């Protein structure tokens, strides 16, 4: 960028709007589709794409060695996300010319498979609802051909378990011939007697066959892993099916990192002593955003000899709460300055209650990441009441965690009257009364356990700030009776 060019001033409303609706990613997805399909009439194509609302549908491959539980995971995913389930058997059961050709050949002709897959995935239900594909592609060659045909998954789940577990599991595999569900003699026995009677031993469950299947899978695994390295995750299949499914679901709902320009607007909320100022300072330093501590902003304004300063000085001195409207006015003025709108901000100490929070939102400063730092009251008391400051150097000490080095320093340490037991209790009570309303307002906030090592908390906060928020399942397509 040319250093002599004037920096581009984008009005803050546009930034907020773009962030809220994900405009960058929408336009990027549209461009991607256009370049992949290259339709003759792009305008008509874009109209269809937007009408179908099919930009963020699930497109998932579930791969894994034999007996890793793919069928179970896929069925649960489809139920949860409303996506279409596809497997190699279901492809062959379709009535079409390509299928007849494939059956005639009876060999694993890759090109035929790819054509079949392409035909199936271009049907209306796959485009609208998304798809979950079980057990395909099996080799790197198939994966490449799929890519060349324009079929790229959003997420690839690689189930993994030690060989011995898999061999043992496979021996107990039973199939219900009517529904195609997979059951197991020890782990997953059907609940009704009806189904129990129908169960048939699956073919290919003896040890030798499982071993052959495993070898085949391992041979192809490296290639598949490297092809899908950016979109895949390995999930341990040696757990209960509920655990496996919950991990798979979190992964599938997460969105990949995007290059959209993003200004962080972070709100840290927690009881006194939860480490808000510390975390805010760490975040502000690492990501070069503005650290706004409400108390300090107010003190700065009070120190200025302005009319506003005169208004709040008595409030600050007596220790009472300054009226909401003045606080909001000062805060919004600080937040609308150029450095905050361009670099982003991390706010702590405010808002304290529902009215302040609502006023902040209506002023146009909705945070895009909200963190609630949870901590039991006893820990807060312990952390705060032993805080002391050295009036000479300004260093802060703590009797338990960071004691003063010498007796001389210890003698002159002073305690902030705000940190005394009674005022702390008052602050805690105030916090607890206001908490439920704020939790309701910020319904998509992230809860963090503040009773941990500060660097662990920092890493957790970082991961939520840098990664995109997970995909809400709000626009699931429900099947109509005609399907």
């Amino acid at each position, binding site marked *: 960028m040319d250093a002599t060019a004037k920096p581009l001033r984008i009005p803050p409303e*546009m930034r907020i709007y773009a962030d809220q609706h994900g405009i960058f990613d929408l*336009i990027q997805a549209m461009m991607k589709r256009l*370049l992949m399909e290259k339709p003759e009439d792009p305008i008509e194509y874009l109209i269809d794409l937007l009408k179908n609302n099919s930009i963020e549908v699930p497109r998932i491959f579930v791969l894994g060695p034999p007996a890793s539980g793919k069928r179970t995971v896929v069925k649960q995913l489809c139920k949860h996300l409303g996506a279409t389930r596809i497997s190699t058997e279901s492809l062959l059961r379709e009535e079409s010319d390509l299928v007849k050709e494939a059956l005639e050949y009876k060999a694993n002709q890759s090109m035929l498979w790819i054509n079949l897959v392409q035909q199936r995935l271009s049907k209306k239900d796959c485009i609208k609802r998304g798809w979950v594909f079980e057990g395909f592609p099996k080799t790197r060659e198939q994966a490449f051909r799929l890519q060349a045909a324009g079929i790229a998954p959003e997420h690839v789940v690689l189930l993994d378990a030690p060989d011995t577990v898999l061999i043992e599991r496979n021996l107990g595999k039973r199939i219900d011939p009517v529904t195609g569900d997979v059951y197991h003699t020890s782990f997953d026995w059907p609940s009704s007697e009806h189904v129990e009677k129908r169960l048939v031993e699956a073919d290919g469950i003896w040890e030798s066959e499982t071993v052959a299947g495993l070898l085949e899978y391992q041979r192809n695994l490296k290639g598949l892993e490297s092809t899908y390295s950016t979109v895949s995750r390995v999930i341990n299949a040696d757990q209960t099916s509920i655990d496996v499914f919950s991990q798979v679901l979190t992964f599938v709902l997460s969105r990949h990192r995007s290059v959209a320009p993003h200004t962080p607007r972070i709100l840290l909320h927690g009881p006194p002593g939860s480490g808000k100022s510390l975390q805010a300072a760490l975040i502000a330093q690492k990501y070069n955003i503005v650290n706004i501590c409400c108390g300090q902003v107010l003190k700065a304004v009070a120190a200025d000899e302005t009319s506003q300063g005169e208004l709040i000085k008595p409030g600050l001195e007596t220790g009472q709460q300054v009226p909401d409207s003045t606080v909001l006015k000062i805060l919004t003025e600080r937040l609308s300055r150029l450095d905050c709108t361009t670099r982003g901000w991390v706010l702590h100490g405010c808002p304290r209650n529902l009215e302040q929070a609502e006023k902040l939102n209506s002023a146009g400063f909705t945070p895009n990441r909200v963190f609630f730092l949870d901590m039991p009251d006893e820990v807060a008391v312990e952390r705060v009441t032993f805080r002391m400051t050295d009036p000479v150097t300004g260093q802060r000490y703590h009797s338990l965690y960071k004691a003063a080095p010498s007796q001389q320093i210890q003698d002159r340490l002073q305690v902030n009257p705000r940190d005394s037991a009674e005022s702390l209790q008052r602050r805690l009570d105030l916090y607890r009364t206001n908490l439920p309303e704020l939790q309701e307002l910020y319904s998509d906030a992230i809860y963090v356990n503040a009773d941990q090592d500060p660097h662990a908390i920092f890493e957790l906060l970082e991961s939520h700030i840098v990664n995109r928020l997970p995909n809400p399942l709000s626009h699931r397509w429900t099947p109509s009776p005609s399907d």
Partner: protein
Amino acid sequence: MATSRELDAKNYLEKHKILELMDNLTSMLFFHRPERPCEFLITQLEKLKLARTTSRDYPCLFNESNLEAIFGILDPTRQGYITLGQYKEALNTIGLKQFDAFPQGADYNRITLETFKKEAKDGLLKSSATFKS
């Protein structure tokens, strides 16, 4: 060395004026800031489709009163004309890259409101016609 697929993609983008289309759509989105961006985009695209067949009423951010206002800013003393340099700068600011550098009145450096409006409208028409011509 660009592969043939890359060249294909580049040709496709240029032929159908995709980048200009995306630029226009994004500017419309940020200017109007609708509550439901997908529906707004559908409306704009339908309008563009209609304009393509009827050759009129292209969706555009600027209308005639905007052009008159710009002229008014450049000519505060109400002489009735602006210089060639001002004319070029103004059309660049609107975002037009291709316009007639020597319109009527360029030789004696006096561009009237009518010429300015005509050139601006022509340029805006060309930049909004983001489809294969």
